[in-house]
């Protein structure tokens, strides 16, 4: 069984949700922290690709998930260890090593002004649709991706819906009793 157990049992005593590892351990050149039992690596957009090549060579044979978070409106502490400069976006990549069962999560800081990150297509081609989804929803471009295009929204759509400055939108509710039914 891996360290990331899916029952909340082991986490009951964890007080703070995010605790940076005490000695600032590093792995593939990235700072390691712990988030309620998950191993988290912190990267800048510049170090990302090199570290992922190292992780791939180290036996992480499958990319399980890739998504992003827009921290524009986040007011709580982000749980970043010292030395990691916070940016507006984070690309969150989850890898799994089937041999040892180990999972790691990589949080990549991506600038809001110039949202570009390297694509992982040459390591794990399964990231193709996931990176397209992140591009579609957040407007983060993945350099050297074979087909950087929208996937869920229409091709001519304006804006990136999962950004925090993209309004949720609403439709007027019509009540039976209302006199001004349009």
């Amino acid at each position, binding site marked *: 069984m891996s360290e990331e157990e*899916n029952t*909340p049992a082991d986490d009951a005593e964890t007080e703070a949700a995010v605790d940076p590892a005490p000695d600032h351990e590093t792995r593939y050149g990235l700072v390691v922290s712990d988030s309620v039992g998950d191993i988290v690596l912190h990267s800048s957009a510049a170090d990302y690709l090199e570290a992922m090549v190292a992780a791939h060579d180290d036996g992480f044979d499958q990319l399980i998930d890739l998504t992003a978070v827009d921290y524009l409106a986040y007011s709580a502490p982000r749980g970043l260890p010292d030395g990691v400069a916070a940016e507006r976006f984070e690309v969150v990549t989850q890898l799994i090593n089937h041999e040892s069962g180990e999972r790691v999560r990589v949080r990549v800081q991506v600038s809001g002004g110039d949202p570009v990150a390297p694509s992982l297509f040459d390591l*794990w081609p399964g990231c193709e649709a996931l990176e397209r989804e992140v591009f579609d929803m957040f407007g983060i471009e993945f350099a050297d991706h074979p087909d950087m295009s929208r*996937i869920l929204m229409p091709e001519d759509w304006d804006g990136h819906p999962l950004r925090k400055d993209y309004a949720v939108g609403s439709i007027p509710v019509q009540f039976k009793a209302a006199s001004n039914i349009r």
Partner: protein
Amino acid sequence: MTAERVLRRGDDSAVLRLSETEAAEIGNDPGASSDDDRVLLNMGPSHPSTHGVLRLMLEMEGETVLRSKPVVGYLHTGMEKQAEQLSYLQGCTNVTRMDYAAPLFSELAFSLTTEKLLGIEVPDRAVWIRMLMCELNRMSSHLLFMATNGMDLGAVGMMIYGWREREEVLRFFEMVTGLRMNHNYIRPGGVAADLPDGWEEEVERILDITEPRLAEYDILMTGQPIWRERLQGVGVLNTDEALALSATGPLLRSTGYAWDLRRAQPYLAYDDVDFDVLVGTYGDCYDRYAIRLNEIRESMRIVRQILEKMPSGDYRIQDKKVTPPPRVRIDQSMEALIHHFKIFTEGYKVPVGEAYCAVESPRGELGVYIVSDGTSTPYRMHVRGPSFINLQTMPHLMKDGLIADGVAIISSVDPIMGEVDR
């Protein structure tokens, strides 16, 4: 084995990396495709064999598929955005609508992640009820696959049979949760209600009905030469390719790779039950069919063990900050009334942090990633949809096959478009 062919980027790739605008331009230009025999063909989004609204762009040479591209998004309703507006209590009503054939798994993954952030442990009985419901749901989901797979391949009678057996399970779900689909039954802290009286007899009845009918499926399909001809050797994928393409579930296991989260990284109480992880040999459509058929049997085996071992006790955690108090307590206690009011108006607050939990859904690894900012709604909720990711294997499975086999391949990947598009 090698994953070389899935790493290709150029024209030799199985994936047709062409935008809809470019495809339309080629289609509107009469001289564009006259220099060779290649034709761009559109299939879907409304086509009986595309399981909802999957659209495929196919590059054909005669009846042979050269390159293809699944075009998705027709069911996109912004559920991840919606989740940012809903409290954790309401969250399950949202995620349950994603994979409508296996809704309890999305609820489970969402609840496990929320509980991980809350740092709470649910009572034993809640764990076993969750497991019972999920295994029954796996049965109903695979029975639906049997029905649609049969229908897609011309065994139209099979559609009615698969539906008939699935209906028995759905009737039980209605008895327990009040709804046939979109149950909102598994919630952070436990389940919504205890199992009703007489649930054991009802579950036994389902098992007794289903067992001989699976044997009938074997007669109708498994051993049939026509069925085997139609599926064997069609849509082949090797292990390295499946891993490289992030495929999980029956699609990965069909290549001979025994990876099932229930066994590899057990959650709930899968440690305490016996079952086999089924793998294929050739990674073709027939292996995927056989794995799903036999997974129904393994789920029934698990359900029989749950019937024996179901513990007594609470069906949800007795933490009044997370689960509402029993109705009778509201009349007796001021605090209970306040807790009830707070939970249903404001919701409970979840500690700051981020977490990911995954479960083995009938389609593969279904994971939920939540970022909490300490309020009662998730700051960000992301679902790792197995169908969405498994769909990427489709162009590689269809490459150089006949278009008629394409229908068998779409069916055997078993995408649920509600979860692909979210």
